[in-house]
């Protein structure tokens, strides 16, 4: 038993880990705190989606080519979820891997599983802040989501966060941090602009193939829930398939160091 001295001069108890739920919660709050204090992360997770929401609302007042707030508000929420779960989480994880922070944390009582669960809690905390700020702004701009649909919207957000976090970890755990930074930022912009997250894709012809993208599935799920108040079965199934695939791939290929 370790007997390192303490201030009271008594022999301390043998080393033990804190209870599992406390460790995971502590790590989730620690990561969320780091994310919300990081200026670059806040820019991508909150400021840019906010600018897109307000910009599209203004653009709709000028031209009907841009959809109205009932369509763009859930789309911007999808963009925000992708920003925190995919871009933000993967870049942070990539650099943690490069600086061997993941290696160090995996040697603490947190362990690899606690680390992943903690990250999931952190992503959900950030998404909660995003939903509050962006949802509140949307409501102020005239967004009127279906009250029942908000439940399905919540399901879509959770599934989308899981799919994009797993995809982000897959990239962060397999390539260099600088490559993760470049790949996830470009992918976020492409998926946001043309991947069906913010602006709906055509359901006919070649465009329908893109509905299989996780960004399109998330956008479709949130729009269907918020506008019609119905359970978006197909988009949620597509998201579930992405979750399973990405988690399996991440488990297989993720490297801690």
């Amino acid at each position: 038993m370790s007997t390192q001295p303490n201030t009271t001069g008594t022999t301390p108890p043998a080393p033990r880990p804190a209870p599992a739920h406390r460790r995971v919660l502590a790590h989730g709050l620690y990561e969320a705190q780091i994310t919300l204090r990081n200026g670059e992360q806040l820019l991508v997770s909150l400021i840019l989606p906010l600018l897109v929401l307000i910009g599209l609302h203004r653009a709709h007042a000028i031209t009907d080519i841009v959809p109205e707030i009932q369509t763009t508000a859930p789309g911007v929420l999808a963009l925000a979820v992708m920003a925190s779960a995919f871009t933000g989480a993967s870049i942070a994880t990539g650099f943690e891997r490069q600086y061997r922070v993941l290696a160090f944390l995996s040697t603490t009582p947190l362990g690899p599983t606690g680390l992943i669960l903690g990250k999931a809690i952190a992503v959900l905390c950030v998404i909660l802040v995003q939903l509050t700020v962006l949802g509140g702004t949307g409501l102020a701009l005239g967004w009127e989501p279906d009250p029942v649909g908000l439940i399905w919207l919540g399901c879509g957000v959770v599934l989308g966060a899981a799919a994009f976090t797993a995809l982000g970890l897959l990239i962060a755990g397999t390539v260099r941090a600088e490559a993760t930074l470049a790949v996830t930022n470009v992918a976020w912009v492409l998926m946001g602009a043309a991947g069906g997250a913010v602006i709906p894709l055509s359901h006919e012809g070649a465009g329908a193939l893109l509905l299989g993208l996780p960004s399109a599935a998330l956008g479709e799920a949130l729009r269907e829930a918020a506008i019609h108040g119905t359970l978006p079965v197909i988009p949620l199934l597509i998201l579930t398939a992405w979750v399973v695939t990405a988690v399996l791939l991440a488990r297989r290929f993720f490297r801690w160091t």
Partner: protein
Amino acid sequence: MPASALCLSLTGVRYALGSARSASGVTEILAGVDLTARRGEVTVIIGPNGAGKTTTLGCAQGMIRPSAGTVRLLGQDPYRAGAELRARVGVMLQDGGLPQSVKPVTLLRHISALHQYPWPLKDLTERLDLGSFLTTSVRRLSGGQKQRIALAAALIGRPELVFLDEPSAGLDPQSRQLVFDLISELRSCGTGIVLTTHLLEEAQQLADSVHILKDGQVVRHGTVAELTHQGSAAARNGTVPARRLTFASPRILTAAELKAAPLPVAQDNGTNRAGSCWAVENISTPADLQALSSWWAQIDLLPAEISFEARTLEDVFWEVSAP
């Protein structure tokens, strides 16, 4: 020492990178490492760059799965370790593993929250003199300050065994002494300490036992006294420690002259005057000295400088590391 005092054992541990099918083939990093560490002792692992020190620690800590062999850390397989075992072990990585954007106080509070009975942060802060930079983000800290934060993070759970990979790298003499004092205190409290270092003087000062790694294998191990006495007949009998004589030659020694020497004479790797400075290892009797003196007379050489001292760990290291 009872077997229960063992806190770490590696038996025939091998680790290889790559695959036989790839163009670069398989690179063997560890080629059968045997190593033990005990509670209340400082076990030092030394070896040249690329010898496998960090990989050995990685296997011992459970971060790397060995290709073959057995690792027991506090009686368990560290690769499959749960939180209970990890709480009993502290790890300081070679390059810290510290998040760059976080303040040390935030990080240490977080690591502390993962343990049930952590070392009080205030106490640890005072012991390692962290107070002046506890609220400065890690990326703005000097190398030595980062080392002390990493050490604090390794110790905050009051581990029974602590792994320190190059703990004094980048530290100024004052901070180094602070760390040495803490390591000595931990040892006296029964904590097992396994550390790697390139500073052989530090190893000699701290170590209860030393393992010298070369090409992925432990080529020598024992206490400092055992290692420095090895090679001497009298030392083997336990009577006289082997000594080492170095001399500076005012002229070039020919191969024939060197061949005529009564004891092996080799260029002194420990100095920067290669070519003019020579070393004779393992002198253990007055007759050895007399024979050397006669040899100098025979080849008409009056050394410009002579030094005679007990063999150090550094001498053993050079001997072992020679290609």
